[in-house]
Protein backbone atom coordinates (compact mmCIF):
# COMPACT_ATOMS: atom_id res chain seq x y z
CA UNK A 1 0.00 0.00 0.00
CA UNK A 2 1.30 3.42 -0.87
CA UNK A 3 2.09 5.60 2.15
CA UNK A 4 -0.43 8.28 2.93
CA UNK A 5 0.42 11.73 1.73
CA UNK A 6 1.46 13.79 4.68
CA UNK A 7 0.16 17.31 4.95
CA UNK A 8 2.15 19.91 6.79
CA UNK A 9 0.23 22.07 9.28
CA UNK A 10 2.06 25.06 7.75
CA UNK A 11 0.84 25.07 4.16
CA UNK A 12 2.46 26.65 1.16
CA UNK A 13 6.04 25.72 1.81
CA UNK A 14 6.92 24.83 -1.78
CA UNK A 15 5.17 27.89 -3.19
CA UNK A 16 6.71 30.32 -0.70
CA UNK A 17 10.14 28.78 -1.00
CA UNK A 18 9.90 28.92 -4.80
CA UNK A 19 9.09 32.60 -4.72
CA UNK A 20 11.89 33.24 -2.28
CA UNK A 21 14.47 31.55 -4.45
CA UNK A 22 13.26 33.23 -7.67
CA UNK A 23 13.35 36.65 -6.08
CA UNK A 24 16.68 36.08 -4.45
CA UNK A 25 18.05 35.00 -7.81
CA UNK A 26 16.59 37.89 -9.81
CA UNK A 27 17.25 40.65 -7.33
CA UNK A 28 20.43 39.58 -5.59
CA UNK A 29 22.24 36.66 -7.20
CA UNK A 30 22.17 37.58 -10.92
CA UNK A 31 23.48 41.15 -10.43
CA UNK A 32 26.16 39.86 -8.08
CA UNK A 33 27.16 37.13 -10.51
CA UNK A 34 27.43 39.77 -13.21
CA UNK A 35 29.84 41.68 -11.01
CA UNK A 36 31.90 38.54 -10.56
CA UNK A 37 31.79 37.73 -14.26
CA UNK A 38 32.92 41.21 -15.24
CA UNK A 39 35.75 40.98 -12.74
CA UNK A 40 36.83 37.68 -14.32
CA UNK A 41 37.55 39.48 -17.59
CA UNK A 42 40.60 40.92 -15.86
CA UNK A 43 43.60 38.69 -15.46
CA UNK A 44 45.04 38.14 -12.00
CA UNK A 45 47.65 40.79 -12.54
CA UNK A 46 45.22 43.45 -13.70
CA UNK A 47 42.93 42.50 -10.80
CA UNK A 48 45.70 42.93 -8.25
CA UNK A 49 46.74 46.20 -9.89
CA UNK A 50 43.17 47.47 -9.56
CA UNK A 51 42.49 46.41 -5.97
CA UNK A 52 46.05 46.66 -4.65
CA UNK A 53 46.47 50.27 -5.67
CA UNK A 54 47.40 52.20 -2.47
CA UNK A 55 44.57 54.67 -3.03
CA UNK A 56 42.07 51.82 -3.27
CA UNK A 57 43.50 50.07 -0.21
CA UNK A 58 43.27 53.31 1.77
CA UNK A 59 39.65 53.69 0.67
CA UNK A 60 38.86 50.15 1.84
CA UNK A 61 40.38 50.90 5.19
CA UNK A 62 38.37 54.08 5.54
CA UNK A 63 35.12 52.53 4.32
CA UNK A 64 35.20 49.49 6.56
CA UNK A 65 36.83 51.24 9.50
CA UNK A 66 34.40 54.16 9.51
CA UNK A 67 31.42 51.86 8.90
CA UNK A 68 32.31 49.65 11.86
CA UNK A 69 32.92 52.68 14.05
CA UNK A 70 29.68 54.34 12.96
CA UNK A 71 27.70 51.16 13.59
CA UNK A 72 29.30 50.86 17.04
CA UNK A 73 28.43 54.46 17.88
CA UNK A 74 24.89 53.87 16.68
CA UNK A 75 24.54 50.81 18.87
CA UNK A 76 25.23 52.93 21.95
CA UNK A 77 23.16 55.97 21.05
CA UNK A 78 20.47 54.05 19.22
CA UNK A 79 19.94 52.04 22.39
CA UNK A 80 19.59 55.22 24.45
CA UNK A 81 17.17 56.54 21.85
CA UNK A 82 15.08 53.38 21.89
CA UNK A 83 15.15 53.41 25.70
CA UNK A 84 13.78 56.94 25.83
CA UNK A 85 11.09 56.17 23.28
CA UNK A 86 9.97 52.99 25.03
CA UNK A 87 10.26 53.91 28.68
CA UNK A 88 9.17 57.50 29.02
CA UNK A 89 6.17 59.56 28.09
CA UNK A 90 6.90 63.14 27.16
CA UNK A 91 5.28 65.82 25.02
CA UNK A 92 6.29 65.56 21.38
CA UNK A 93 7.14 61.87 21.68
CA UNK A 94 5.32 61.08 18.44
CA UNK A 95 7.32 63.74 16.64
CA UNK A 96 10.64 62.43 17.95
CA UNK A 97 9.60 58.92 17.01
CA UNK A 98 8.87 60.05 13.44
CA UNK A 99 12.12 62.03 13.20
CA UNK A 100 14.11 58.87 13.82
CA UNK A 101 13.08 57.55 10.42
CA UNK A 102 14.02 60.69 8.56
CA UNK A 103 17.52 59.46 7.60
CA UNK A 104 15.71 56.59 5.82
CA UNK A 105 13.59 58.90 3.75
CA UNK A 106 15.86 61.83 3.03
CA UNK A 107 17.63 61.68 -0.33
CA UNK A 108 21.18 60.95 0.70
CA UNK A 109 22.59 63.83 -1.34
CA UNK A 110 20.37 66.24 0.57
CA UNK A 111 21.64 64.85 3.84
CA UNK A 112 25.22 65.09 2.62
CA UNK A 113 24.91 68.69 1.50
CA UNK A 114 23.14 69.66 4.72
CA UNK A 115 25.77 67.98 6.89
CA UNK A 116 28.60 69.51 4.86
CA UNK A 117 27.10 73.00 5.16
CA UNK A 118 26.56 72.77 8.90
CA UNK A 119 29.86 71.14 9.76
CA UNK A 120 32.07 73.10 7.32
CA UNK A 121 34.47 75.55 8.93
CA UNK A 122 32.23 78.44 8.09
CA UNK A 123 29.06 76.54 9.08
CA UNK A 124 27.21 77.08 12.38
CA UNK A 125 28.43 73.92 14.14
CA UNK A 126 31.70 73.60 12.27
CA UNK A 127 32.64 77.15 13.29
CA UNK A 128 32.17 76.38 16.97
CA UNK A 129 34.11 73.11 16.72
CA UNK A 130 36.87 74.87 14.84
CA UNK A 131 37.56 77.04 17.86
CA UNK A 132 38.29 73.78 19.74
CA UNK A 133 40.53 72.72 16.87
CA UNK A 134 38.16 69.97 15.81
CA UNK A 135 37.56 69.59 12.11
CA UNK A 136 34.68 67.51 10.86
CA UNK A 137 33.95 68.36 7.23
CA UNK A 138 36.42 67.23 4.58
CA UNK A 139 38.18 64.77 6.92
CA UNK A 140 37.54 61.11 7.88
CA UNK A 141 35.55 62.56 10.79
CA UNK A 142 33.07 63.85 8.27
CA UNK A 143 32.75 60.39 6.74
CA UNK A 144 32.08 58.96 10.18
CA UNK A 145 29.47 61.63 10.92
CA UNK A 146 27.55 60.95 7.72
CA UNK A 147 27.61 57.20 8.35
CA UNK A 148 26.36 57.68 11.92
CA UNK A 149 23.55 59.83 10.55
CA UNK A 150 22.28 57.29 8.06
CA UNK A 151 22.70 54.27 10.36
CA UNK A 152 20.84 55.49 13.45
CA UNK A 153 17.31 54.35 12.49
CA UNK A 154 18.45 50.76 12.02
CA UNK A 155 19.49 50.33 15.63
CA UNK A 156 16.57 52.29 17.08
CA UNK A 157 14.00 50.37 15.07
CA UNK A 158 15.43 46.93 15.83
CA UNK A 159 15.89 47.55 19.56
CA UNK A 160 12.65 49.43 20.21
CA UNK A 161 10.18 46.51 19.91
CA UNK A 162 12.46 44.12 21.79
CA UNK A 163 12.85 46.58 24.63
CA UNK A 164 9.10 47.18 24.71
CA UNK A 165 8.67 43.42 24.97
CA UNK A 166 10.70 43.28 28.20
CA UNK A 167 8.14 43.36 31.01
CA UNK A 168 8.54 45.91 33.74
CA UNK A 169 8.15 43.07 36.24
CA UNK A 170 11.44 41.53 35.17
CA UNK A 171 13.28 44.68 36.22
CA UNK A 172 11.23 44.87 39.40
CA UNK A 173 12.10 41.26 40.15
CA UNK A 174 15.79 42.10 39.77
CA UNK A 175 15.40 45.10 42.10
CA UNK A 176 13.54 43.06 44.71
CA UNK A 177 16.36 40.50 44.57
CA UNK A 178 18.78 43.24 45.54
CA UNK A 179 20.26 44.19 42.16
CA UNK A 180 21.33 47.79 41.62
CA UNK A 181 20.23 49.68 38.51
CA UNK A 182 23.61 49.01 36.93
CA UNK A 183 23.47 45.29 37.68
CA UNK A 184 19.93 45.11 36.36
CA UNK A 185 21.03 46.76 33.14
CA UNK A 186 24.08 44.61 32.58
CA UNK A 187 22.68 41.28 33.73
CA UNK A 188 19.03 41.54 32.73
CA UNK A 189 18.31 44.23 30.15
CA UNK A 190 21.44 44.03 28.03
CA UNK A 191 21.32 40.25 27.48
CA UNK A 192 17.68 40.61 26.50
CA UNK A 193 18.31 43.23 23.82
CA UNK A 194 21.76 42.02 22.75
CA UNK A 195 20.50 40.04 19.70
CA UNK A 196 18.52 43.08 18.54
CA UNK A 197 21.54 45.32 19.09
CA UNK A 198 23.62 43.00 16.97
CA UNK A 199 21.02 42.98 14.20
CA UNK A 200 20.91 46.75 14.32
CA UNK A 201 24.69 46.85 14.22
CA UNK A 202 24.79 44.57 11.18
CA UNK A 203 22.18 46.58 9.31
CA UNK A 204 23.75 49.93 10.15
CA UNK A 205 27.13 48.57 9.13
CA UNK A 206 25.88 47.13 5.84
CA UNK A 207 24.15 50.35 4.98
CA UNK A 208 27.22 52.40 5.87
CA UNK A 209 29.56 50.33 3.70
CA UNK A 210 27.40 50.92 0.65
CA UNK A 211 26.61 54.57 1.39
CA UNK A 212 27.66 57.05 -1.23
CA UNK A 213 25.49 60.15 -1.55
CA UNK A 214 25.60 61.59 1.93
CA UNK A 215 29.31 60.88 2.43
CA UNK A 216 30.62 62.29 -0.78
CA UNK A 217 29.73 65.92 0.00
CA UNK A 218 31.17 66.05 3.49
CA UNK A 219 34.21 63.81 2.94
CA UNK A 220 36.19 66.22 0.82
CA UNK A 221 37.52 63.18 -1.08
CA UNK A 222 41.19 63.79 -0.41
CA UNK A 223 43.20 60.91 -1.97
CA UNK A 224 44.64 58.53 0.66
CA UNK A 225 42.78 60.41 3.42
CA UNK A 226 39.05 60.74 2.94
CA UNK A 227 38.14 58.74 -0.14
CA UNK A 228 35.60 55.95 0.42
CA UNK A 229 35.56 52.72 -1.58
CA UNK A 230 32.29 53.46 -3.42
CA UNK A 231 33.92 56.67 -4.66
CA UNK A 232 36.82 54.68 -6.10
CA UNK A 233 34.26 52.57 -7.99
CA UNK A 234 32.53 55.68 -9.38
CA UNK A 235 35.89 57.17 -10.33
CA UNK A 236 36.80 54.05 -12.27
CA UNK A 237 33.42 54.02 -13.95
CA UNK A 238 33.90 57.61 -15.04
CA UNK A 239 37.16 56.52 -16.64
CA UNK A 240 35.26 53.74 -18.49
CA UNK A 241 37.28 51.15 -16.48
CA UNK A 242 34.27 48.90 -15.93
CA UNK A 243 36.26 45.79 -15.11
CA UNK A 244 38.41 47.70 -12.63
CA UNK A 245 35.28 49.09 -10.97
CA UNK A 246 33.77 45.62 -10.57
CA UNK A 247 37.05 44.34 -9.21
CA UNK A 248 36.98 46.94 -6.43
CA UNK A 249 33.30 46.18 -5.89
CA UNK A 250 33.75 42.43 -5.67
CA UNK A 251 36.41 42.77 -2.97
CA UNK A 252 33.99 45.00 -1.02
CA UNK A 253 31.24 42.46 -1.49
CA UNK A 254 33.33 39.58 -0.24
CA UNK A 255 34.48 41.44 2.87
CA UNK A 256 30.95 42.65 3.64
CA UNK A 257 29.51 39.21 3.10
CA UNK A 258 32.03 37.59 5.40
CA UNK A 259 31.45 40.18 8.12
CA UNK A 260 27.67 39.84 7.91
CA UNK A 261 27.96 36.06 7.97
CA UNK A 262 30.03 36.33 11.11
CA UNK A 263 27.54 38.66 12.77
CA UNK A 264 24.65 36.40 11.82
CA UNK A 265 26.36 33.37 13.26
CA UNK A 266 27.05 35.24 16.48
CA UNK A 267 23.46 36.38 16.67
CA UNK A 268 22.13 32.93 15.95
CA UNK A 269 24.03 31.58 18.90
CA UNK A 270 22.74 34.34 21.14
CA UNK A 271 19.13 33.90 20.18
CA UNK A 272 19.15 30.14 20.22
CA UNK A 273 18.70 29.91 23.95
CA UNK A 274 16.07 32.56 24.41
CA UNK A 275 13.73 31.26 21.76
CA UNK A 276 14.54 27.59 22.01
CA UNK A 277 10.91 26.75 22.54
CA UNK A 278 8.71 29.76 23.15
Amino acid at each position, binding site marked *: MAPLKRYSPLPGFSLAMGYTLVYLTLVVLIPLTAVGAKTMTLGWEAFWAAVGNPRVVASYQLSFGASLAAAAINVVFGMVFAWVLVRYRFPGKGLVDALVDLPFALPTAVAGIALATIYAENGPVGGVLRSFDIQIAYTPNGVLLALVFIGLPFVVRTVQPVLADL*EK*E*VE*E*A*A*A*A*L*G*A*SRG*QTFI*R*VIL*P*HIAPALLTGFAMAFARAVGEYGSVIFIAGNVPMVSEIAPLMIITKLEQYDYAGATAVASVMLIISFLLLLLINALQGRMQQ*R*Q*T*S*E*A
Partner: protein
Amino acid sequence: MSIAIRNISKQFGAFKALDDVSIDIPSGELVALLGPSGCGKTTLLRIVAGLEYADRGQILLAGDDASDRHARDRQVGFVFQHYALFRHMSVFDNVAFGLRVKPRRHRPAESEIQRRVKHLLELVQLDWLANRYPTQLSGGQRQRIALARALAVEPKVLLLDEPFGALDAKVRKELRRWLRRLHDEIHVTSVFVTHDQEEALEVCDRVVLINKGKIEQIGTPESVYDHPATPFVANFLGSVNLFHGRVEEGQLHLGDHALALDKTAADADGKAVAFVRPHEFDLLPGAQAGGLPAKIVRIVAVGASARIELSEIDRSDGEVIEVTVARDLFRLLALAAGDVVSLRPRQIRVFQTPALAA
Protein backbone atom coordinates in the same frame (compact mmCIF):
# COMPACT_ATOMS: atom_id res chain seq x y z
CA MET B 1 9.84 39.72 60.50
CA SER B 2 6.56 41.45 61.31
CA ILE B 3 4.90 43.85 58.90
CA ALA B 4 2.88 46.85 60.01
CA ILE B 5 0.89 48.73 57.43
CA ARG B 6 -0.12 52.11 58.86
CA ASN B 7 -2.75 54.38 57.34
CA ILE B 8 -1.68 53.79 53.76
CA SER B 9 -3.42 55.88 51.10
CA LYS B 10 -2.65 55.88 47.42
CA GLN B 11 -4.28 57.67 44.55
CA PHE B 12 -3.84 57.19 40.80
CA GLY B 13 -5.14 60.41 39.28
CA ALA B 14 -8.73 60.71 40.45
CA PHE B 15 -8.92 57.01 41.36
CA LYS B 16 -8.51 56.15 45.04
CA ALA B 17 -6.66 52.85 45.01
CA LEU B 18 -6.15 52.65 48.78
CA ASP B 19 -7.88 54.64 51.46
CA ASP B 20 -6.36 54.70 54.93
CA VAL B 21 -5.48 51.02 55.15
CA SER B 22 -3.87 49.58 58.30
CA ILE B 23 -2.94 45.94 58.89
CA ASP B 24 -0.66 44.29 61.43
CA ILE B 25 0.95 41.05 60.37
CA PRO B 26 2.88 39.21 63.08
CA SER B 27 6.07 37.39 62.28
CA GLY B 28 5.66 33.99 60.62
CA GLU B 29 2.05 34.39 59.60
CA LEU B 30 0.61 33.65 56.16
CA VAL B 31 -1.94 36.31 55.34
CA ALA B 32 -4.17 36.65 52.29
CA LEU B 33 -5.25 39.96 50.81
CA LEU B 34 -8.53 39.03 49.21
CA GLY B 35 -10.80 41.14 47.07
CA PRO B 36 -12.22 41.62 43.58
CA SER B 37 -9.92 42.85 40.83
CA GLY B 38 -9.17 46.53 41.05
CA CYS B 39 -9.79 46.67 44.81
CA GLY B 40 -6.24 47.83 45.57
CA LYS B 41 -4.79 44.61 46.98
CA THR B 42 -1.96 44.37 44.46
CA THR B 43 -1.13 48.05 44.91
CA LEU B 44 -0.88 47.47 48.66
CA LEU B 45 1.45 44.51 48.15
CA ARG B 46 3.65 46.54 45.80
CA ILE B 47 3.82 49.34 48.37
CA VAL B 48 4.98 46.84 51.00
CA ALA B 49 7.64 45.61 48.55
CA GLY B 50 8.81 49.12 47.68
CA LEU B 51 7.85 48.78 44.02
CA GLU B 52 5.27 51.51 44.50
CA TYR B 53 5.14 54.36 46.97
CA ALA B 54 2.18 55.43 49.10
CA ASP B 55 0.90 59.00 49.10
CA ARG B 56 0.42 58.82 52.86
CA GLY B 57 1.11 56.33 55.61
CA GLN B 58 3.95 54.11 56.74
CA ILE B 59 5.27 50.61 56.19
CA LEU B 60 7.06 49.17 59.21
CA LEU B 61 9.21 46.09 58.72
CA ALA B 62 10.24 44.48 62.02
CA GLY B 63 9.18 47.69 63.70
CA ASP B 64 11.43 49.96 61.60
CA ASP B 65 9.99 52.53 59.24
CA ALA B 66 10.79 51.26 55.74
CA SER B 67 8.55 53.68 53.84
CA ASP B 68 11.46 55.41 52.10
CA ARG B 69 13.60 52.32 51.63
CA HIS B 70 14.32 51.11 48.10
CA ALA B 71 12.92 47.71 47.13
CA ARG B 72 16.42 46.21 47.02
CA ASP B 73 17.06 47.20 50.65
CA ARG B 74 13.82 45.84 52.09
CA GLN B 75 14.78 42.16 52.15
CA VAL B 76 11.50 41.08 50.67
CA GLY B 77 10.95 38.27 48.23
CA PHE B 78 8.40 39.08 45.55
CA VAL B 79 6.62 36.54 43.36
CA PHE B 80 4.79 37.92 40.33
CA GLN B 81 1.65 36.60 38.70
CA HIS B 82 3.43 36.16 35.38
CA TYR B 83 6.62 34.75 36.95
CA ALA B 84 8.96 37.47 35.60
CA LEU B 85 11.77 34.97 35.19
CA PHE B 86 14.93 36.03 33.36
CA ARG B 87 14.45 34.41 29.97
CA HIS B 88 18.08 34.40 28.92
CA MET B 89 19.23 32.62 32.08
CA SER B 90 18.98 28.95 32.95
CA VAL B 91 16.83 27.91 35.87
CA PHE B 92 19.95 27.62 37.98
CA ASP B 93 21.16 31.14 37.09
CA ASN B 94 17.71 32.54 37.75
CA VAL B 95 17.73 31.17 41.29
CA ALA B 96 21.36 32.21 41.81
CA PHE B 97 20.73 35.77 40.59
CA GLY B 98 19.95 37.29 43.99
CA LEU B 99 23.12 35.78 45.49
CA ARG B 100 25.36 36.83 42.61
CA VAL B 101 24.33 40.49 42.66
CA LYS B 102 25.16 40.86 46.34
CA PRO B 103 27.96 43.32 47.11
CA ARG B 104 31.28 41.47 47.05
CA ARG B 105 31.79 41.41 50.79
CA HIS B 106 28.35 39.79 51.38
CA ARG B 107 28.46 37.52 48.36
CA PRO B 108 28.83 33.83 49.18
CA ALA B 109 31.59 31.86 47.46
CA GLU B 110 30.63 30.21 44.17
CA SER B 111 30.67 26.75 45.82
CA GLU B 112 28.30 28.04 48.50
CA ILE B 113 26.02 29.53 45.80
CA GLN B 114 25.99 26.16 44.04
CA ARG B 115 25.06 24.43 47.27
CA ARG B 116 22.30 26.85 48.18
CA VAL B 117 20.71 26.93 44.73
CA LYS B 118 20.74 23.15 44.63
CA HIS B 119 19.08 23.06 48.02
CA LEU B 120 16.39 25.54 46.93
CA LEU B 121 15.69 23.62 43.75
CA GLU B 122 15.24 20.50 45.87
CA LEU B 123 12.90 22.45 48.13
CA VAL B 124 10.67 23.31 45.17
CA GLN B 125 11.19 19.77 43.85
CA LEU B 126 12.65 20.88 40.53
CA ASP B 127 16.37 20.14 40.92
CA TRP B 128 16.25 18.07 37.74
CA LEU B 129 15.45 21.19 35.71
CA ALA B 130 18.51 23.23 36.73
CA ASN B 131 19.94 23.52 33.22
CA ARG B 132 16.70 24.25 31.39
CA TYR B 133 15.55 27.68 30.31
CA PRO B 134 12.29 29.24 31.53
CA THR B 135 10.62 28.90 28.11
CA GLN B 136 11.04 25.13 28.38
CA LEU B 137 9.02 24.89 31.60
CA SER B 138 5.31 24.64 32.31
CA GLY B 139 3.53 27.47 34.11
CA GLY B 140 3.46 25.67 37.43
CA GLN B 141 7.17 24.87 37.19
CA ARG B 142 7.99 28.47 36.29
CA GLN B 143 6.16 29.76 39.33
CA ARG B 144 7.97 27.34 41.62
CA ILE B 145 11.28 28.51 40.15
CA ALA B 146 10.20 32.11 40.72
CA LEU B 147 9.50 31.18 44.31
CA ALA B 148 12.89 29.51 44.70
CA ARG B 149 14.53 32.61 43.22
CA ALA B 150 12.73 34.85 45.71
CA LEU B 151 13.71 32.59 48.61
CA ALA B 152 17.38 32.45 47.59
CA VAL B 153 18.20 35.77 49.22
CA GLU B 154 16.61 34.56 52.46
CA PRO B 155 13.99 37.29 52.54
CA LYS B 156 12.44 38.29 55.83
CA VAL B 157 9.09 38.66 54.11
CA LEU B 158 7.61 36.81 51.16
CA LEU B 159 5.10 38.67 49.00
CA LEU B 160 3.06 36.77 46.42
CA ASP B 161 1.00 38.64 43.85
CA GLU B 162 -1.70 36.28 42.55
CA PRO B 163 0.99 33.63 42.19
CA PHE B 164 -1.34 30.97 40.81
CA GLY B 165 -3.58 33.28 38.81
CA ALA B 166 -2.20 32.26 35.44
CA LEU B 167 -2.37 28.52 36.06
CA ASP B 168 -5.12 26.01 35.36
CA ALA B 169 -7.43 24.81 38.11
CA LYS B 170 -5.77 21.49 38.86
CA VAL B 171 -2.24 22.92 39.07
CA ARG B 172 -3.52 25.77 41.24
CA LYS B 173 -4.98 23.41 43.75
CA GLU B 174 -1.79 21.36 43.87
CA LEU B 175 0.41 24.41 44.24
CA ARG B 176 -1.55 26.03 47.01
CA ARG B 177 -1.37 22.91 49.09
CA TRP B 178 2.31 22.78 48.36
CA LEU B 179 2.74 26.46 49.29
CA ARG B 180 1.03 25.86 52.62
CA ARG B 181 3.39 22.97 53.35
CA LEU B 182 6.37 25.07 52.32
CA HIS B 183 5.27 27.84 54.64
CA ASP B 184 4.93 25.43 57.52
CA GLU B 185 8.49 24.34 56.79
CA ILE B 186 10.23 27.70 56.50
CA HIS B 187 7.90 30.00 58.47
CA VAL B 188 8.66 33.19 56.62
CA THR B 189 6.10 35.98 57.06
CA SER B 190 4.07 35.86 53.87
CA VAL B 191 1.45 38.02 52.22
CA PHE B 192 -0.56 36.44 49.48
CA VAL B 193 -2.74 38.45 47.10
CA THR B 194 -5.63 36.68 45.44
CA HIS B 195 -9.13 37.24 44.13
CA ASP B 196 -9.98 33.58 44.61
CA GLN B 197 -11.77 33.18 47.95
CA GLU B 198 -11.32 29.41 47.99
CA GLU B 199 -7.58 29.87 47.65
CA ALA B 200 -7.42 32.45 50.44
CA LEU B 201 -9.58 30.41 52.83
CA GLU B 202 -7.67 27.22 52.22
CA VAL B 203 -4.10 28.45 52.39
CA CYS B 204 -3.90 31.30 54.85
CA ASP B 205 -3.82 31.84 58.61
CA ARG B 206 -5.72 35.06 58.30
CA VAL B 207 -7.67 36.76 55.55
CA VAL B 208 -7.89 40.50 54.90
CA LEU B 209 -10.89 41.38 52.77
CA ILE B 210 -10.46 44.53 50.72
CA ASN B 211 -13.04 46.32 48.65
CA LYS B 212 -12.66 49.61 46.81
CA GLY B 213 -9.43 50.47 48.59
CA LYS B 214 -10.78 49.84 52.08
CA ILE B 215 -10.55 46.96 54.51
CA GLU B 216 -13.89 45.24 55.05
CA GLN B 217 -12.83 42.60 57.54
CA ILE B 218 -9.77 40.87 58.96
CA GLY B 219 -9.96 37.45 60.56
CA THR B 220 -9.26 33.75 60.38
CA PRO B 221 -10.83 31.90 57.44
CA GLU B 222 -13.48 30.35 59.72
CA SER B 223 -14.43 33.61 61.38
CA VAL B 224 -14.79 35.64 58.20
CA TYR B 225 -16.75 32.84 56.55
CA ASP B 226 -19.06 32.22 59.50
CA HIS B 227 -19.34 35.77 60.75
CA PRO B 228 -19.06 38.18 57.85
CA ALA B 229 -18.92 41.74 59.12
CA THR B 230 -20.38 43.41 56.05
CA PRO B 231 -22.72 42.52 53.17
CA PHE B 232 -19.68 42.65 50.86
CA VAL B 233 -17.89 39.94 52.83
CA ALA B 234 -21.00 37.76 53.03
CA ASN B 235 -21.47 38.10 49.31
CA PHE B 236 -17.83 37.65 48.31
CA LEU B 237 -17.01 34.54 50.33
CA GLY B 238 -18.58 31.53 48.72
CA SER B 239 -21.89 31.33 46.97
CA VAL B 240 -24.79 32.85 48.82
CA ASN B 241 -28.48 33.62 48.33
CA LEU B 242 -29.54 37.18 48.84
CA PHE B 243 -32.98 38.34 50.05
CA HIS B 244 -34.35 41.84 50.48
CA GLY B 245 -36.92 42.25 53.23
CA ARG B 246 -37.80 43.84 56.53
CA VAL B 247 -36.88 42.93 60.06
CA GLU B 248 -39.77 43.20 62.51
CA GLU B 249 -39.98 41.80 66.03
CA GLY B 250 -37.22 39.30 65.57
CA GLN B 251 -38.52 38.00 62.29
CA LEU B 252 -37.47 38.52 58.71
CA HIS B 253 -40.39 39.37 56.47
CA LEU B 254 -40.07 38.51 52.82
CA GLY B 255 -43.31 39.51 51.13
CA ASP B 256 -46.06 37.62 52.97
CA HIS B 257 -43.71 35.14 54.57
CA ALA B 258 -41.92 35.45 57.85
CA LEU B 259 -38.74 33.61 58.79
CA ALA B 260 -37.51 33.26 62.35
CA LEU B 261 -34.25 34.99 63.20
CA ASP B 262 -31.64 34.35 65.84
CA LYS B 263 -31.71 36.81 68.71
CA THR B 264 -28.28 38.00 67.71
CA ALA B 265 -28.96 38.25 63.99
CA ALA B 266 -30.71 41.60 64.04
CA ASP B 267 -30.95 44.19 66.75
CA ALA B 268 -33.19 46.78 65.15
CA ASP B 269 -36.27 46.75 62.98
CA GLY B 270 -36.23 48.11 59.45
CA LYS B 271 -35.22 47.33 55.90
CA ALA B 272 -32.58 44.66 55.61
CA VAL B 273 -30.70 42.37 53.25
CA ALA B 274 -30.38 38.76 54.31
CA PHE B 275 -27.81 36.19 53.19
CA VAL B 276 -28.24 32.45 53.38
CA ARG B 277 -25.62 30.02 52.12
CA PRO B 278 -26.85 27.15 49.89
CA HIS B 279 -26.07 24.47 52.48
CA GLU B 280 -27.86 26.29 55.31
CA PHE B 281 -31.41 25.50 54.21
CA ASP B 282 -33.74 22.79 55.45
CA LEU B 283 -36.13 21.52 52.80
CA LEU B 284 -39.68 20.71 53.95
CA PRO B 285 -42.20 19.10 51.63
CA GLY B 286 -45.12 21.29 50.46
CA ALA B 287 -45.91 24.80 51.59
CA GLN B 288 -45.47 25.14 55.35
CA ALA B 289 -45.62 28.03 57.76
CA GLY B 290 -42.28 29.44 58.85
CA GLY B 291 -40.72 28.55 55.52
CA LEU B 292 -40.38 30.14 52.16
CA PRO B 293 -42.36 28.28 49.48
CA ALA B 294 -40.38 27.61 46.33
CA LYS B 295 -40.59 25.46 43.24
CA ILE B 296 -37.73 23.24 42.11
CA VAL B 297 -36.48 24.31 38.69
CA ARG B 298 -33.46 22.11 38.21
CA ILE B 299 -31.48 19.49 40.06
CA VAL B 300 -27.81 18.73 39.54
CA ALA B 301 -26.99 15.62 41.53
CA VAL B 302 -23.32 15.13 40.81
CA GLY B 303 -20.64 14.68 43.44
CA ALA B 304 -20.98 14.63 47.21
CA SER B 305 -23.96 16.95 47.32
CA ALA B 306 -26.95 17.67 45.15
CA ARG B 307 -27.44 21.23 43.94
CA ILE B 308 -31.05 22.29 43.67
CA GLU B 309 -32.14 25.46 41.91
CA LEU B 310 -35.48 26.85 43.00
CA SER B 311 -37.61 29.87 42.29
CA GLU B 312 -39.68 31.58 44.95
CA ILE B 313 -43.35 30.95 44.31
CA ASP B 314 -44.45 34.49 45.12
CA ARG B 315 -41.80 36.09 42.97
CA SER B 316 -41.74 36.00 39.24
CA ASP B 317 -38.49 37.85 38.53
CA GLY B 318 -36.72 34.56 37.84
CA GLU B 319 -34.26 35.03 40.71
CA VAL B 320 -32.79 31.59 41.41
CA ILE B 321 -32.29 30.28 44.92
CA GLU B 322 -29.50 27.78 45.19
CA VAL B 323 -29.64 25.03 47.79
CA THR B 324 -27.25 22.15 48.33
CA VAL B 325 -28.06 19.02 50.32
CA ALA B 326 -26.01 15.92 50.99
CA ARG B 327 -26.59 13.14 48.47
CA ASP B 328 -27.89 10.72 51.11
CA LEU B 329 -30.44 13.20 52.33
CA PHE B 330 -31.34 14.08 48.76
CA ARG B 331 -32.15 10.45 48.06
CA LEU B 332 -34.37 10.28 51.15
CA LEU B 333 -36.27 13.42 50.17
CA ALA B 334 -36.99 11.99 46.71
CA LEU B 335 -37.38 15.39 45.11
CA ALA B 336 -37.99 16.08 41.44
CA ALA B 337 -38.13 19.16 39.28
CA GLY B 338 -41.52 20.88 39.56
CA ASP B 339 -42.03 19.93 43.25
CA VAL B 340 -42.98 22.66 45.68
CA VAL B 341 -41.02 22.77 48.92
CA SER B 342 -40.62 25.13 51.85
CA LEU B 343 -37.21 26.53 52.53
CA ARG B 344 -36.33 27.04 56.15
CA PRO B 345 -32.92 28.63 56.69
CA ARG B 346 -30.95 27.27 59.60
CA GLN B 347 -28.86 30.42 59.68
CA ILE B 348 -29.56 33.86 58.31
CA ARG B 349 -27.14 36.77 58.26
CA VAL B 350 -28.97 40.04 58.25
CA PHE B 351 -27.58 43.48 57.48
CA GLN B 352 -29.63 46.58 58.02
CA THR B 353 -29.82 48.66 54.87
CA PRO B 354 -29.47 52.36 55.55
CA ALA B 355 -32.66 54.17 54.53
CA LEU B 356 -32.40 55.01 50.87
CA ALA B 357 -32.55 58.68 50.08
CA ALA B 358 -36.04 59.70 48.95
